[in-house]
């Protein structure tokens, strides 16, 4: 336990990346646009070892989505280094394709990887039952609710088979009950097949319930103002006193970052 804790707080850089972990070191990103410059991230350093869940919380506009796009190699950092195994993105907006049925949207990664339509659908259909979408396989996204669309996008991300999942506010559009169901399901899934997860959320409780570590970012430009290790036995619930205590700590860090 002690050694594990050690390696968790201070893994050597090479080890973190080579075992499917993530290493972000002193990364900055500035958007330059006709005359104006927006500094999104400033000197962010974060790491997550293989199979860890890293939650990122921070005020709106502090660069959380930018951070995920950097990890997915959708844009390069201006400064700093990023080491990250192939990552799948679940975007903040679901970006489902309107012409594909729900199940075909979920199976998109498989189809792109060259899997034939029928087996791809089968694999997606199996997961649909687990996320409570059974019976909606052949409905187009336009006829799904926001929460259902998010779950389809989530299945799509999972089926990409990438070792790293970058989830951008994955459960934001869900009601409280469906949300905690999805959180439980995510936990079970991760227990079954280890993935490294970077979870962006504005819900501090959700971060603590799901994550091994919570990184708190300051308002733009995003800097890491606190990192909280979550040593609470799973499964956790929102009402655990340890969760509540840590929530207060995280909210305090958010507040401190804001007033700085």
């Amino acid at each position: 336990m002690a050694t594990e804790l050690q390696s968790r707080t201070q893994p050597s850089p090479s080890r973190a990346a080579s075992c499917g972990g993530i290493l972000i070191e002193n990364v900055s990103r500035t958007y330059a646009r006709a005359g104006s410059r927006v500094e999104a991230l400033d000197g962010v350093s974060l790491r997550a070892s293989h199979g860890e869940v890293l939650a990122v919380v921070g005020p709106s506009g502090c660069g959380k989505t930018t951070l995920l796009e950097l990890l997915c190699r959708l844009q390069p950092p201006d400064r700093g280094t990023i080491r990250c195994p192939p990552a799948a993105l679940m975007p903040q907006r679901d970006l489902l394709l309107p012409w594909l049925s729900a199940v075909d949207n979920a199976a998109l990664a498989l189809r792109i990887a060259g899997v034939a339509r029928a087996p791809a659908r089968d694999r997606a259909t199996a997961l649909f039952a687990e996320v409570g979408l059974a019976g909606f396989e052949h409905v187009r996204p336009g006829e799904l609710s926001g929460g259902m669309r998010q779950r389809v996008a989530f299945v799509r991300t999972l089926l990409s088979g990438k070792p790293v999942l970058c989830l951008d506010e994955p459960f934001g559009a869900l009601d409280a009950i469906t949300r905690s169901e999805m959180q439980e399901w995510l936990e079970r899934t991760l227990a079954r097949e280890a993935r490294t997860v970077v979870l962006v959320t504005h819900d501090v409780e959700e971060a603590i319930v799901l994550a091994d570590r919570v990184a708190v970012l300051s308002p733009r430009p995003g800097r890491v103002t606190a990192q909280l290790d979550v040593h609470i036995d799973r499964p956790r619930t929102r009402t655990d006193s340890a969760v509540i205590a840590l929530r207060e700590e995280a909210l305090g860090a958010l507040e401190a970052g804001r007033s700085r």
Partner: protein
Amino acid sequence: MSSRIERAAPAVLLALVLLGAWELYVDLAGVQADLLPAPHGVARALWENAGLLARNFAVTAEEVVLGLGLALAGGFVLAVAIHMSPLLRRAVYPLAVGSQAVPIPVIGVLLVFWWGFGLFPKLVVIALICFFPVVVTTVDGLRAVDPDQPKLLRTLDATRWQAFRFAELPAALPAALSGARIALAVGVIGAFIAETTTPTSGAYPGLGREIITDVNFQTSRAYAGTVVLFAFAIVCFYALALAQRRLAPWSAQPQGDPH
């Protein structure tokens, strides 16, 4: 079924009112039949020349359908090329616009010199007249794809071709079909222009040429032929609307859909 009749009712009613007004005008003003035949005269000409009109119509219908198909295919390919290459966009777009101003008789002789008296030069004329709306709507459709969509596909390791196949092609399809419906509006008159500018060797020259030969001495037959083209354009328009609903059921209901 009854709702279908209900939806068609306003158009039928308006047509009847206009026909009535036309009949009255010819009667009351004493207009010569070779200047403007009355509707009942046109109806009689339609009935008496049904065989001739039908055979000529078959020729014209083939020209319109194939010409429109050529315009749709050519316009779509051109739009994709323009979308993919900013260089092509800058090079081709102005010329495509300019091509719309070319009076067809200027090039009619050349087309016949190249391709003879058959069907093909007529298809080229029709396609030239109606490809442009397809290009414009398709380019817009391709550009309307959410800019984050390619990003997502990239994280799923999609190749450029796969991104096109999964995201851009389906997005452009309803747009292209909308363009085709605009194109159709000029496609029928395009067939008329094609027939009258490039001579034909076939037994039946098509409705356009038939109308132009009839217009002075068989005026009511020319009007009868015009009625056929009129109806054909309407049928084609709704056939394309139906195709759009079948091929792109996710897109919004096309405008003017009677169903």
